[in-house]
């Protein structure tokens, strides 16, 4: 087919474009996925028996707020990744998260006696944490990937990875309401590991699902 003919065909096929088609789709996917995760969480996990303990306890509050911030920062980064030549000016803010986490860990190491560190690190729920965060991430990640197929990521793998970070951030924030572990040593290690695992799954899924 001759290129000029193709241009004529494309012109004949043209319809007006709804602005925000991609963003709206992604936000809808995020809302739907998160709602499903919330239902799953309410049915199978549930909020810890002493939710009031979370307020006023800085390290405990950070266990919820850090992953929430991760989701909030990764979301616009993901949307930028889904558009050709898309730029996210706020994505560098993501580096503040490991920095804050490092500060919390350092403060814990300075204020608690050495022999208690290993117990704090091991906690009582490593496996629960490592399983729950990916499971709770799954509905959000799946919905995001479906919505992102409308996009055109230059780097499908990277876009999928950031989708994984977004999903895992929100899922971990929800899971933290169940989790009874209080030490930054625990969540700094195991939450991070679980979140990075979901990011890895997102990268692999993105490589295949987000090709265009």
């Amino acid at each position: 087919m001759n290129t000029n003919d193709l241009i004529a065909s494309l012109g004949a096929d043209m319809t007006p474009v709804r602005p925000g088609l991609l963003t709206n789709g992604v936000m809808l996917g995020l809302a739907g996925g998160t709602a499903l995760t919330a239902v799953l969480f309410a049915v199978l996990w549930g909020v810890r028996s002493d939710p009031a303990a979370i307020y006023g306890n800085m390290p405990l509050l950070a266990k919820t707020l850090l992953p929430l911030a991760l989701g909030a920062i990764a979301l616009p980064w993901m949307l930028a990744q889904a558009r050709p030549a898309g730029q996210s000016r706020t994505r560098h803010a993501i580096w503040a998260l490991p920095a804050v986490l490092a500060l919390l860990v350092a403060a814990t190491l300075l204020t608690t006696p050495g022999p208690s560190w290993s117990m704090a690190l091991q906690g009582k729920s490593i496996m629960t944490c490592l399983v729950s965060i990916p499971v709770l991430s799954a509905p959000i990640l799946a919905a995001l990937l479906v919505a992102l197929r409308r996009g055109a990521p230059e780097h499908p793998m990277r876009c999928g990875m950031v989708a994984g970070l977004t999903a895992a951030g929100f899922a971990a924030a929800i899971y933290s309401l169940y989790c009874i572990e209080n030490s930054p040593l625990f969540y700094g290690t195991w939450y991070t590991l679980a979140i990075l695992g979901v990011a890895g799954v997102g990268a692999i899924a993105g490589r295949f699902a987000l090709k265009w």
Partner: protein
Amino acid sequence: MRDAKWADLLRQANNGHRDAYIAFLKQVAPVLRGVIQARSGGRHEDCEDILQNVLIAIHEKRHTWRENEPVSAWLYAIARYKTIDALRKSGRSRTTAFDGEEAQVADDNVIDPTAARDLDVLLTRLDDTSAAIVRQIKLQGLTAEEVGAQLNMTPGAVRVALHRAMTRLSAAVAEDDPETANQKAPT
């Protein structure tokens, strides 16, 4: 400024102005052709194939351009992605028998019966709509308008679907061709 002019055309196009859209595509095509040639260093006909894929991608993804962002960066990103994609695919399966024949099948309405039989087998690889479009236009000689009326698609959509189907068929033949694999192996 070229970017401002293109942005203006694409903005109008996205608001539904067909003439602006066609003018936009006609203006960007030669520039993209240059970008693709520089990137791929490939043969002329390969570049034209890639350019057509880029134009289709622009068409399908035109909602991903945001009005406050530069159009050229957006266009070049699409051209880059599709060129790399095409080079990766052709690296897997260099010149194949179908490379030459594709042009024939695509342009001629006279079909060699053996080619038609092979095409019939190949068509099972496509989804039903694409297969129907290829069969009716390439084998039965119907026009895009006639096929579109039957399938409830615009003629433009039929032509784009036809182009995509031919590209997929060409890729399917390239993957199947064991000779190509054997030729590649020693190197």
